[in-house]
């Protein structure tokens, strides 16, 4: 056990173990110690989270229920409770912010905590680790455990907490850094996705340390000038652009919403209704955060008759800022979706609004029709703020029950979600 060099910055990465499943086990003692698979809703067939016990027997996030049941016949399958997870994340945020001044909620169940200013509060980072584990157990429950990774940068702090045993505290120092880099796969490296990891493997590079065995010229040739630099940093245990870029972004750049259904849609009216529903949720979030955007995107996914996964994507850059559901839906449905040749039934719909900027930074719009829409949107937002989302529904929803917002593990819309409960 060693403590961080006082001259180095000091980061803690806190990662709650098997978050969705652990909270459900905390809520229901009958589930504790049993293999639990969490699905999005009753009747769904994709495991979106698994308990520690299920993971130990090979059940992975994203696997199909029938495959999970083959591995673990006694698997207990429970629907997720997204609001419970978000409420717990708010409690976690309160715990972290009461313990250190600089906290970055990285995803629903992870946070980076800067300990550089807390050296008198916590003589060693290990002491912080012990105290944060204790507070989490006190406030969220005895079943809730977390990994704490400590290091002089975020890349290494996250890497060590990803690969350490459940409930552990581990520290990466300049002395043991290379041993860690030489022992983890790219799945544990923040900022390196599946495809990049696979490309590295094709070059014979299986761990971050092995990047050091590849020359700059080879990296440039294989990955281009940008990724060659970032990969070199990762190989040396330095933070790549991913971390600094996150902090430099003052507001969300894109807000999107996708929905995977439990059966395929081949009905035009159903697809239209879903697209409108998703668009309305996106636009409410955009206005709530005081933003407007210009880049409109739609994506559909399905399977053709041969069973092959098919995608269809289109996007459009609007000449003026978009703030209203009717404007965005007009582009999504009438302009983009209508150009689709309907080659396959749809299982997943996604809509996004990008090129977001604070609304105040756009030039004022002068069209009278736009101002009428703005008045309607403002009135609807007031109703929503008082009585909840979808209290007033557009006729485009055709009276169907609304698809309500969900929280994802990545917490991509964290600015909106974390401000919502406060």
């Amino acid at each position, binding site marked *: 056990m060693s403590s961080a060099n006082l001259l180095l910055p000091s980061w803690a990465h806190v990662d709650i173990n098997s978050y969705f499943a652990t*909270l459900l086990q*905390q*809520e*229901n*003692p*009958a589930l504790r110690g049993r293999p639990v698979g969490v699905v999005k809703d009753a009747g769904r067939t994709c495991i979106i989270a698994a308990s520690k016990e299920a993971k130990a027997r090979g059940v992975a996030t994203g696997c199909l229920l029938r495959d999970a049941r083959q591995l673990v016949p006694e698997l207990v399958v429970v629907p997720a*409770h997204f*609001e*419970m997870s978000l*409420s*717990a994340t*708010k409690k976690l945020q309160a715990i972290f912010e009461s313990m250190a001044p600089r906290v970055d909620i990285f995803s629903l169940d992870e946070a980076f905590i800067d300990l550089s200013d807390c050296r008198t509060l916590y003589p060693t980072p290990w002491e912080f680790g012990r105290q944060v584990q204790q507070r989490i157990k006190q406030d969220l*429950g005895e079943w809730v455990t977390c990994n704490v990774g400590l290091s002089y940068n975020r890349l290494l702090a996250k890497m060590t907490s990803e690969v350490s045993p459940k409930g552990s505290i581990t520290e990466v120092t300049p002395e043991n850094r290379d041993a860690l880099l030489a022992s983890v796969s790219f799945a544990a490296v923040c900022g390196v996705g599946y495809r990049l990891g696979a490309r590295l493997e094709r070059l014979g590079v299986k761990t971050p340390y092995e990047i050091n065995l590849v020359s700059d010229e080879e990296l440039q040739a294989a990955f281009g000038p940008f990724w060659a630099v970032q990969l070199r940093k990762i190989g040396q245990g330095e933070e790549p652009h991913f971390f600094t870029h996150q902090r430099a972004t003052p507001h969300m750049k894109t807000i999107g919403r996708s929905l995977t259904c439990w059966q395929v849609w081949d009905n035009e009216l159903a697809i239209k209704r879903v697209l409108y529903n998703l668009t309305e949720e996106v636009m409410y979030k955009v206005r709530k955060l005081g933003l407007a955007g210009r880049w409109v995107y739609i994506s559909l996914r399905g399977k053709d008759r041969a069973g092959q996964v098919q995608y269809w994507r289109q996007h459009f850059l609007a000449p003026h800022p978009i703030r209203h559901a009717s404007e965005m839906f007009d582009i999504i449905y009438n302009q983009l979706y209508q150009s689709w040749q309907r080659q396959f039934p749809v299982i997943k719909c996604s809509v996004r609004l990008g090129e977001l900027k604070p609304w105040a930074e756009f030039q004022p719009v002068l069209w009278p029709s736009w101002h009428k829409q703005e008045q309607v949107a403002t009135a609807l937002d007031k109703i*929503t*703020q*008082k*009585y*909840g*989302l979808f*209290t007033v529904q557009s006729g485009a929803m055709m009276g169907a029950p609304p698809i309500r917002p969900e929280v994802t593990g990545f917490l991509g819309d964290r600015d909106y979600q974390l401000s*919502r*409960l406060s």
Partner: protein
Amino acid sequence: MVTELKDGGVRQRLYSVVVGPNVYRLLFNRDTEEWWLEEVWCE
């Protein structure tokens, strides 16, 4: 276990109450002060 819920200005609190082998999810509307039995887990 207590879960805070908020949709617009509607604030609710979900209490998960363990009684013997059962778990009851009780939803309390903090504005109207009404209680709803949302779900019961029993084996």
